[in-house]
């Protein structure tokens, strides 16, 4: 089997652009998803059923259906419903964010519940509101413990962003697929894509281990 490095070289600039898209879309989605996820997670823990119930349904829906289906719903139905037409990149970020929110909500819940109740009680006893106790006492401690789970979610999300190729977002998979179609070659494009993803997740992993160690110190 011959391996044509020349076509990889040919596509290298496009693949790099795709990598940039993958990174930016994943970053935006994890950030937006984490913010939404905090709201969903707190809602799920609320004493009020009218907050709890919809948030639980939200989590069930996004965890119980395939991400590709969610991406199609957002791209072909949800975004056009609000804007008249669709936009692949925006739809991709929205779909990944909504999905990440469901998973990070569970991370927040587990992290918050792992903090001793005495912390909240001490905060309330000096006169904090429940929200202040959450904001200044519980969350700062919980987030430290959540770093590994968040990192994991980020890695999953980065890999899952490859699904956006189906709605023509010009990320890594999109360009390797284009390469396949142009040269009618299968090994070069997809092994190259695999290598890029691997380098990304590997680096991310290292970064997380470093961050975790730094925070524990």
């Amino acid at each position, binding site marked *: 089997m011959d391996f044509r490095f020349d076509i990889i070289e040919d596509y290298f600039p496009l693949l790099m652009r795709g990598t940039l898209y993958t990174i930016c879309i994943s970053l935006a989605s994890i950030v937006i998803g984490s913010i939404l996820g905090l709201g969903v997670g707190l809602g799920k823990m609320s004493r009020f059923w009218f907050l709890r119930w919809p948030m639980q349904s939200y989590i069930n829906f996004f965890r119980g259906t395939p991400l590709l289906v969610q991406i199609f719903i957002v791209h072909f139905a949800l975004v056009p419903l609000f804007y008249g037409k669709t936009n692949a990149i925006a739809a991709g970020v929205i779909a990944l964010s909504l999905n990440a929110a469901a998973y990070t909500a569970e991370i927040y819940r587990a992290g918050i519940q792992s903090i*001793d109740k*005495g*912390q909240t*009680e*001490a905060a309330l*006893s*000096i006169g904090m*509101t429940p929200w202040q106790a959450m904001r200044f*006492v519980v969350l700062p*401690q919980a987030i430290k413990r959540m770093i590994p789970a968040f990192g994991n979610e980020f890695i999953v999300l980065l890999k899952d962003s490859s699904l956006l190729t189906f709605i023509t977002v010009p990320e890594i998979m999109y360009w390797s697929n284009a390469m396949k179609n142009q040269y009618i070659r299968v090994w070069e494009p997809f092994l190259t894509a695999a290598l890029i993803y691997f380098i990304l997740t590997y680096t991310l992993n290292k970064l997380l281990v470093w961050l975790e160690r730094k925070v524990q110190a």
Partner: protein
Amino acid sequence: MMAANAIIQVANLSKAFGENEVLRDITVDVAPREVLVVIGPSGSGKSTFLRCLNLLEQPSGGEIVIDGKPLLAKGTDIVAMRAELGMVFQQFNLFPHLKVLDNITLGPVRIRKWPVAKAREKAMELLRKVGLEDKAEVYPASLSGGQAQRVAIARALAMEPKIMLFDEPTSALDPEMVGEVLAVMKQLAKEGMTMVVVTHEMGFAREVGDRVLFMEQGRIVEQGPPEALFERPQQERTKAFLSKVL
């Protein structure tokens, strides 16, 4: 019983956790500057009583009036009321992610909206008072139990509360550290702080308490000045309990 000038008035307070009636018909007043010591066997409801006073537990019935304000009335600002009551826990509950000084300034800065400089000055003053000014910049994890509890007292005092509640503040400490915490509490009592103290330290109760209250199974069995209660208990159950702990 309902002295008009009482700073804490509790009337017919009851609390149940499901079927479990933990407090039954508790009626007691605390005068300003008074030190009320609460004793009783484990599980008798002492902690629950204390926690009802600042609404960490929601009472099932009865009335609580703190400094003239009915705690359980609709429209009472519970959060603001809690700031008037300092609480010290058996397990310290210091905030481990904040340095000692920041543990103390958190309330004044975030709740009272004091300028940081003023809050830090006050915190240092309190740390000097509890003998720990050299620990301002360390994290709670590096403190001994006795030091941690003294910081916890300083943190509560930083809010300038009118009343201090202590829930077995020395029960989690190694014996050699009990004294340093009791000394701080003694000093506080001397300065005229109103205090409700749940403790097994009978020496402290005798020396510092103005009144001792014995609880069992969610009821007040007997109360009185320390000498009277310790030397001449009237109730059989009080005698039985005291014979075990004295």
